[in-house]
């Protein structure tokens, strides 16, 4: 793996990451969510043309505890071959945000506890690396002992110690012939001291980058910013930084500003499952100029939508022949209408999820592209400020205006 920082804008950095032969990506960037190695609803023939930046995904070793097991993946020649994702980047990481987030309670010295589809499993470094080595991902994140922000001081300290021990153990099990592909996890939860200790110690290990762990677990956004800054201050600038668990565009922006390069997120998937299309404006040029033609915040709220997402379950869309997002170039928006997707959701048809996951992933990738464009133009703070201002905007109804109208065409 090669990673080079090319330029900066405020704290945000633009990088170039080569995950594998032929998989070169600019950062900040997104790893697509997978289940058993493939996106939830997007098969490979649709994935290959999804978006130019849809080039890499995360995989969770927890999906390979039973069916398929590690040995089956190994016999098949590794995960890329087994799930037909050769030419795609793969980053293995333990966290499976689709299941219950680990709160560390059931973890022990034997391993971290995870909820899986076959119940609670405790996975230690040996088992974890057995799966990682069978899968042969391009990068892997070490096994952390993550705890949430309300963990007691003693438990939090233990999580930092254990995460370091497990990092060392995982590294010792990395086969030499595959080279160094490890991202060491930095934990420490709400304690800045522990965060700093974890970061300093992890930085001494022979890793190619870092994963900022323990975020997206219910912490306060301003606390997260402080913790990220504290951690990143202790990490070597030239190495890659990744984080899991963030989703909302504001959370991504905050982490980018702190200096994070690579993200994985369940946000597009959660919107898809809920029947929502991602709609937040992507850049200053494309943002709706004439606010009068756009539905107001209260009109959107009336049908369960808001400025980031459109609630396609709403009957407001039943005759709406527009694409999900006007001007969006994704497969779904080029081919289908809100009315059709509303019908598919209404009738519980699987195609609704395929079409929504395609759009939501595309839209989110466009957001990351907008971030990179802003960094390149050294306008990251302006972009961030513009974005957060659109999200806080409200419209005031004058007494003379009509009651909220549904969006019908």
């Amino acid at each position, binding site marked *: 793996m090669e990673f080079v920082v090319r330029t900066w804008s405020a704290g945000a950095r633009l990088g170039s990451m080569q995950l594998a032969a032929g998989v070169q990506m600019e950062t900040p960037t997104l790893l697509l969510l997978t289940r058993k190695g493939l996106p939830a609803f997007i098969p490979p023939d649709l994935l290959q043309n999804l978006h130019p930046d849809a080039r890499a995904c995360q995989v969770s070793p927890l999906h390979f505890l039973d069916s398929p097991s590690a040995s089956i993946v190994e016999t098949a020649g590794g995960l890329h071959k*087994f799930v037909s994702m050769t030419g795609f980047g793969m980053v293995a990481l333990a966290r499976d945000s689709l299941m219950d987030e680990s709160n560390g309670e059931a973890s022990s010295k034997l391993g971290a506890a995870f909820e899986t589809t076959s119940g609670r499993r405790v996975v230690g470094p040996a088992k974890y690396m057995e799966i990682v080595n069978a899968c042969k991902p391009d990068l892997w994140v070490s096994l952390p002992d993550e705890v949430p922000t309300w963990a007691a001081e003693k438990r939090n300290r233990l999580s930092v110690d254990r995460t370091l021990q497990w990092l060392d153990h995982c590294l010792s099990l990395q086969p030499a012939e595959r080279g160094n592909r490890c991202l060491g996890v930095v934990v420490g939860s709400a304690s800045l001291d522990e965060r700093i200790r974890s970061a300093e110690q992890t930085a001494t290990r022979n890793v190619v980058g870092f994963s900022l762990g323990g975020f997206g677990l219910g912490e306060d956004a301003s606390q997260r910013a402080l913790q990220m800054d504290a951690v990143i201050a202790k990490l070597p600038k030239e190495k890659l930084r990744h984080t899991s668990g963030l989703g909302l565009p504001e959370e991504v922006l905050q982490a980018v500003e702190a200096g994070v390069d690579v993200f994985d997120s369940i946000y597009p998937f959660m919107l898809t499952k809920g029947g929502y299309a991602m709609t937040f404006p992507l850049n200053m040029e494309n943002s709706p100029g004439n606010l009068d033609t756009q539905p107001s915040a209260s009109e959107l709220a009336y049908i369960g939508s808001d400025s980031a997402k459109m609630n396609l379950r709403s009957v407001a869309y039943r005759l709406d022949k527009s694409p999900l997002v006007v001007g969006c170039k994704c497969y779904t928006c080029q*081919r289908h209408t809100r009315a059709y997707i509303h019908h598919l959701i209404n009738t519980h048809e699987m195609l609704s999820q395929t079409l929504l996951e395609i759009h939501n992933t595309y839209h989110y990738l466009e957001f990351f592209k907008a971030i990179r464009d802003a960094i390149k133009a050294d306008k990251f703070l302006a972009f961030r400020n513009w974005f957060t201002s659109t999200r806080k905007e409200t419209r005031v109804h004058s007494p003379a205006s009509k009651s909220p109208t549904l969006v019908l065409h």
Partner: protein
Amino acid sequence: MLGISPSMALRFEVLARHNRARASRLTLPHYEALTPLFMPVGTQGTIKGLTNDQLEDLDCQIILGNTYHLALRPGADLLDTIGGLHKFMNWPRALLTDSGGFQMVSLLHLADITEEGVTFQSPVDGKPMLLTPEDSIQIQNKIGADIIMALDDVVKTTTTGPRVEEAMYRTLRWIDRCIAAHSRPHEQNLFGIVQGGLDPQLRDICLEGLVARNLPGYAIGGLAGGEGKDAFWRVVAQCTAGLPEDKPRYVMGIGFPLDIVVCTALGADMYDCVYPTRTARFGSALVSEGVLRLTHAAMATDYRPLDSSCTCMVCKRYTRAYLHTLVTKEAMGSQLVSYHNISHMMQLSRNLHSSILEGRFPDIHGGS
């Protein structure tokens, strides 16, 4: 004038024959199809999890929509406002809708058939409702498919007694009402459905009556409902013999590949069934040797593709071992096996057409 329908919106050209089997070109308003062909069922305006691009890649030519379901959701009037099901789905090829009668009888409590139509309880609020032949055709006119089906009085093949005869005669009376109600004969082809149970005399009367109406095409209905295979072939053979040579013949509800091959040998052209897509969702793949149960434990370590002779995207990329881990657990499993199963059926359709065209039809099913 009641009873005569000279209008057609299709052209049917038989390109080659082998005994009774035909390879033909069926030109419909939205698409030029080659028969014999299998029509996957897209009940509610979609084929489970597959996009239009994928369906086109798979060579699907005609897709079936269920009138009963579509009339409920999104509704016939909505489809009319939008400009028809083709536009709603953005499907550029052909569509066929059934009459809605079969679904009602099979899906609904207290459904009953009278001379007026099919009475049933609304699934929405339990109110008594009635679907007449006129209603069915009007709804299908709004949906806008290339081929629409007459409302028929269909009985189970295992039914015996006077009910079978009653249903056959009623079907003939209803076809006239369907013809009269059809407001778009130059854009949509109304197919009549031959009924009569397993009784050759009744089937003959029905055949005669429908052929006299000079419809654009005909379906053989009331089969695939539990009758024995011998009875099934016999009725199909009788019906194809009694239907005009120059019009398409559609055997409804047939999806087992062997049944399709035999019906083709007997002179049929079109088939539909939920079987390939439904069985995919339960983890079964259609392969040249038969049916592969992917849920079986042995599949976990079987690193072969589903079907070594299949060239579809799924067989090129995946093994039985991986699909075993997905089926019945992940939506992706359903999508991938559905994709393969449809590929299998469309490959079968292509093989039937080209083997008849090239004079080697007996080879594809091992003689006879």
